[in-house]
């Protein structure tokens, strides 16, 4: 096991790069990003990040020597963790490939032979830098610049692990690819960097799942995800995040969508102390389409600050954002979003729905949408609501012999159904089960 010293400085950044034996251009990229990280301020809006101490975190921890392609070759403690979560079993049943990241590095990676034969590249980012430097150089930071925000700069400086996927022209990946992220160590920062390029006419569904055990100290998960959807391609990116409640989950996710491309973000946020996540889309080609579906649960001591951003930069583009949140036991959920329509773009439309359920008097829900529209050939619709569980619905269900607790779960499942139905069946069942577990504790 290899670990850098606690805290961050230019030496730590250089040490990570040297340990990974990276080319000079990546070392420069990291160091210049670190300078930006020092310059950038913490967000002046959103939840408090006061407890986050950048010098009380380990920035790199390598759990195993190599990436393996066989679960049995993993150390027993790591294998046990993944077996408990059921990843190897899911891989057999319905996945095209799996990447498992434990602490800072990917420890397991497999992809179906048929996909490799079609030219699909699915490797961890560290391998991609070594094996496909031209592709990585071309696309890295093309959608998320290190100057985007403080956490994007931090990730660019100390990133480790994550996935690199390239889907060639007109290749349709029928079964999803999955990445699984686990933080097991205390006071650890996980900074994976994911880069996906869906070439013209291709299709891919990528799923990521995240968990961590509970510690009393803070951990940081600060990922960057960059996606390029080329002409006529379609990409769906699904996340079910169930970090433990000591984790700061501050993630930057952006996609560039070219002509007639389709990008879909499906986002389930259950765990973490604080989540700040606003998947974004730049619709740069005509007839591009973007959709964001997100559901968030905020329980005791949790802040879920989530939403989405869509920039309509080309004519005939359309977008849809559906966001649902549930708060209880003093949790706070906020929707924060932007829809921007550039001047002169014809036939542009967007529809935004953000609804919140408050389950008790201690909790809080906020919505902070921004709509910035220029010109008159665009259509924008936005609606939001905050309310409690409908007593009439509960009464109806209870009059049919359903206990109150179960009736509440049913109403909540119905409330989040527009999001859940976008997930593969196995994940949809799991998400419903997890939310039921969070609310009733069993």
């Amino acid at each position, binding site marked *: 096991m290899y670990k850098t010293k606690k805290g961050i400085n230019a030496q730590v950044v250089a040490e990570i790069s040297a340990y990974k034996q990276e080319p000079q251009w990546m070392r420069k990229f990291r160091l210049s990003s670190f300078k930006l990280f020092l310059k950038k301020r913490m967000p002046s809006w959103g939840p408090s990040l006061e407890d986050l101490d950048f010098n009380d975190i380990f920035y790199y921890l390598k759990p195993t020597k190599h990436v393996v392609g066989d679960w049995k070759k993993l150390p027993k403690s790591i294998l046990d963790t993944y077996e408990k979560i059921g990843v190897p079993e899911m891989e057999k049943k319905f996945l095209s490939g799996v990447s498992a990241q434990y602490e800072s590095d990917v420890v397991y990676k497999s992809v179906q032979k048929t996909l490799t034969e079609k030219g699909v590249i699915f490797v961890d980012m560290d391998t991609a830098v070594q094996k496909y430097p031209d592709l990585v150089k071309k696309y890295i930071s093309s959608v998320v610049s290190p100057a985007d925000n403080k956490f994007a700069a931090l990730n660019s400086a100390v990133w480790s692990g994550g996935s690199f996927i390239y889907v060639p022209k007109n290749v349709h990946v029928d079964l999803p690819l999955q990445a699984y992220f686990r933080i097991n160590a205390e006071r650890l920062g996980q900074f994976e960097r994911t880069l996906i390029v869906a070439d013209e006419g291709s299709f891919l569904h990528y799923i990521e799942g995240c968990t961590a055990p509970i510690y009393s100290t803070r951990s940081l998960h600060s990922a960057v995800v960059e996606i390029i959807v080329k002409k006529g391609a379609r990409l769906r990116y699904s996340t079910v995040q169930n970090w433990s409640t000591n984790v700061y989950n501050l993630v930057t996710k952006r996609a560039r969508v070219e002509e007639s491309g389709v990008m879909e973000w499906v986002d389930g946020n259950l765990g973490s102390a604080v989540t700040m996540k606003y998947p974004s889309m730049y619709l740069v080609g005509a007839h591009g389409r973007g959709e964001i579906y997100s559901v968030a649960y905020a329980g005791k001591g949790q802040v879920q600050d989530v939403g989405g951003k869509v920039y309509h930069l080309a004519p005939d583009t359309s977008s849809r954002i559906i966001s649902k949140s549930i708060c209880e036991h003093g949790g706070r959920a906020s929707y924060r979003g932007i829809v921007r329509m550039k*001047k*002169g773009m014809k036939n542009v439309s967007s529809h935004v729905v953000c609804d*919140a359920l*408050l*389950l*008790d*008097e201690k*909790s*809080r*829900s*906020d*919505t*902070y*949408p*921004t*709509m*910035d*529209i*220029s*010109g*008159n*050939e*665009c*259509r*924008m*619709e*936005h*609606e*939001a*609501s*905050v*309310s*409690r569980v409908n007593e009439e619905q509960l009464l109806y269900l209870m009059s049919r012999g359903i206990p109150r607790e179960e009736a509440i779960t049913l109403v909540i499942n119905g409330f989040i159904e527009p999001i859940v139905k976008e997930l593969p069946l196995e994940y949809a069942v799991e998400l419903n089960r997890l939310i039921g577990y969070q609310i009733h504790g069993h």
Partner: protein
Amino acid sequence: MENTVITTLTSSQVLHISVNTPGEKTFIYWVQTVSDITLDVSFDFKYPDTHANIYFLIHAKKNARVTLSTRQNHVTSKITSSVFVRSVLDDYGMLFFHGVVFIDKGLHDVVGNQRSDVLTLSSQTSVMVKPYLEICSHDVKSSHATTVGTIPNEILLYMKSRGIFERVAKNMYAKGFLTHDLPVIADKLLSTKGEKKECMVE
């Protein structure tokens, strides 16, 4: 139109309205401008059993930039309030609307809504809308909705086919858009502000 207050706003203002009596209230603010105007209007609802509907009817032309901030402060239970912002933007008209509904802790039977609808008549207009909800109680309802759009071509075509000039048709549509559920107010605004000179119907 009892309990209805109509105010024509012609210059930048900060207004703090404290609603201290129960019952139905209607506030209508009429803004027609060709120059920049900034309005900051907050409402404190302090008395239970208050039902307030607040309308901002805005027509911005030429280079006018209308900046409107509203705040509905709910600090007492059993209150319903709604803010409706209807704007017609022409030429280079701009609207910046920032609305907040705040419902304090421990309240019940509170409904706070805000709705903004923007009709754009020119391709050079700009709109920025930030309708925020800050809800700290669970036994309440709150919502906001926003639409931005222009006059559908088929409607214009229909009106033109009935012999109405395009400009007149647009203005008729815009007037209906602003005052469709406030007919009495529409007439009042016309008569009080000098017949057709002040209205949008040419």
